[in-house]
């Protein structure tokens, strides 16, 4: 594992050098007072603020992470379940799927106030917001995976007159697994957005930390909120990757079809 991390670091070294140049340039620009530090704080200043206010930032990050995990977890469970339902009962799919697609086009920011009315201020609304934005890619990807089973394999199964259940469990679900994983990865990014947007309106977590820092003109704190939310998103993708590898260890052919 460490060998692979080392290889990855070496492979990506241009990106690391570019990052260093970027941060140094930024630091220099602010130090020379070419830009006012209350508009663009220097990286060291952001770092200092983060260290100083770490207990607060940490608590906010944890709260946001909790909402994201809740929203994404439930959208994975219900997205896959709904997709299976739609797949198994085509008439339900034809009746309900168009509305799912329509619902998906409604911007989360426009329904967030409605969520506050229903769920009140605080975490329930944030969780609902993360859930709503992240369910559709999982649903759509799972459905595609189930429907796009290799017709050749389907024909092979047909030789042995399988029951619909055998087809679903032995052929269609395994074929859909790479699609489900892709859906969850797409949704992970969206769940972070959903949670932060929810927090802007309903309060709590990094969203309201960023919002409060803005009203207080604390641009450095805004920046550390932003950095923490992207760290969350990266961490989430990393966790999904690790979990899927562990769950499918010994079955590498389920991850890349």
């Amino acid at each position, binding site marked *: 594992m460490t060998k692979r991390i080392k290889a990855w670091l070496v492979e990506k070294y241009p990106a690391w050098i570019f990052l260093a140049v970027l941060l140094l340039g930024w630091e220099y620009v602010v130090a020379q007072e070419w830009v006012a530090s209350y508009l663009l704080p220097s990286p060291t200043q952001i770092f200092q603020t983060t260290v100083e206010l770490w207990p607060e930032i940490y608590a906010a990050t944890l709260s946001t992470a909790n909402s994201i995990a809740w929203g994404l977890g439930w959208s994975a469970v219900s997205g896959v379940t709904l997709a299976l339902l739609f797949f198994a009962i085509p008439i339900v799919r034809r009746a309900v799927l168009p509305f799912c697609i329509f619902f998906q086009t409604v911007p989360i920011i426009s329904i967030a106030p409605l969520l506050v009315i229903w769920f009140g201020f605080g975490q329930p609304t944030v969780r609902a917001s993360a859930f709503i934005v992240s369910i559709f890619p999982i649903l759509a990807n799972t459905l595609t995976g189930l429907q796009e089973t290799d017709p*050749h*394999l389907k*024909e*092979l*199964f*047909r*030789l*042995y*007159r*399988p029951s619909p259940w*055998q087809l679903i469990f*032995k*052929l269609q679900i*395994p074929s859909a697994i790479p699609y489900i994983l892709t859906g969850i990865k797409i949704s992970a990014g969206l769940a972070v957005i959903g949670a932060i947007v929810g927090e802007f309106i309903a309060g709590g977590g990094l969203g309201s930390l960023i919002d409060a820092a803005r009203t207080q003109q604390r641009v450095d704190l805004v920046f550390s909120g932003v950095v923490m939310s992207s760290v969350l998103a990266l961490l989430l993708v990393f966790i999904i990757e690790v979990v899927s590898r562990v769950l499918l260890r010994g*079955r*590498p*052919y*389920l991850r890349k*079809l």
Partner: protein
Amino acid sequence: MESSGQTNTQSAPARVIEVQHLVKRFAGAEHAIIDDLSFAVPADSCLSLLGPSGCGKTTLLRLLMGLEEPSSGVIHVAPAQAKHMSYVFQEPRLVPWRTCLENVLLPLELIHQNNQASQAYALDLLQQLGLDERLQHFPGELSGGMQMRVALARALVTEPKIVLLDEPFAALDERTRFRMQDLLLELKSRLQLQYVFVTHSIAEAVYLGDQILLMDSTGRARDWRGVDFSERNQALKLAPAFNSIVQTYSQLFSEMERNSTASGSGESRP
């Protein structure tokens, strides 16, 4: 020559597969892909289906398996055998996320016969096919020849009486192909199988078939006769008797090609 088929099968005791006036026309197609085809396979006899590419050999095999419905005509398979047929596709068609062993067990799972006895039989088959050290490998980790052997084991694990094979060795290199041909002959006598083997290779058809049905590009039977060799091994391919039969078919092939070019495209048959 057209009557040789009749004389061949008249004395045969029982017909395991009987096909009468079979026609298959795909929706929207101008010509039938199989046009008025009749033949029979007697008990204990293996049939080679020979013909140029696109003449409907695969379609005929799929019709025999029930993967396609005939447009008209009759396919009759003796009831004792009808339930014990299996099919080998042109490509191995293994399930990529299942190991070699799990691929072979798949048919047993699907027909609810995945018990200890049949698992032991599966392992035995895999050993006979020289795959006993690859049981836990995935198809993606096996060579083409090994994948085909797994596919063969999968087709045999349900203990079929008739195996339908659709050019299974076409994609293999020559040495592997020869080994697979001998393996098939060996399995045939050991497991008392009958097979229908589709190929466009004349030598392969003559080597593997007790009877050879030659189809032309219009989906009709061009020739149907039995070939009888007391012993089949690779040395047979050098024997004059073998080569004269191959020669006859080569001539028939070029005759068919001449006819189809002489009468032009979209020709109407009498």
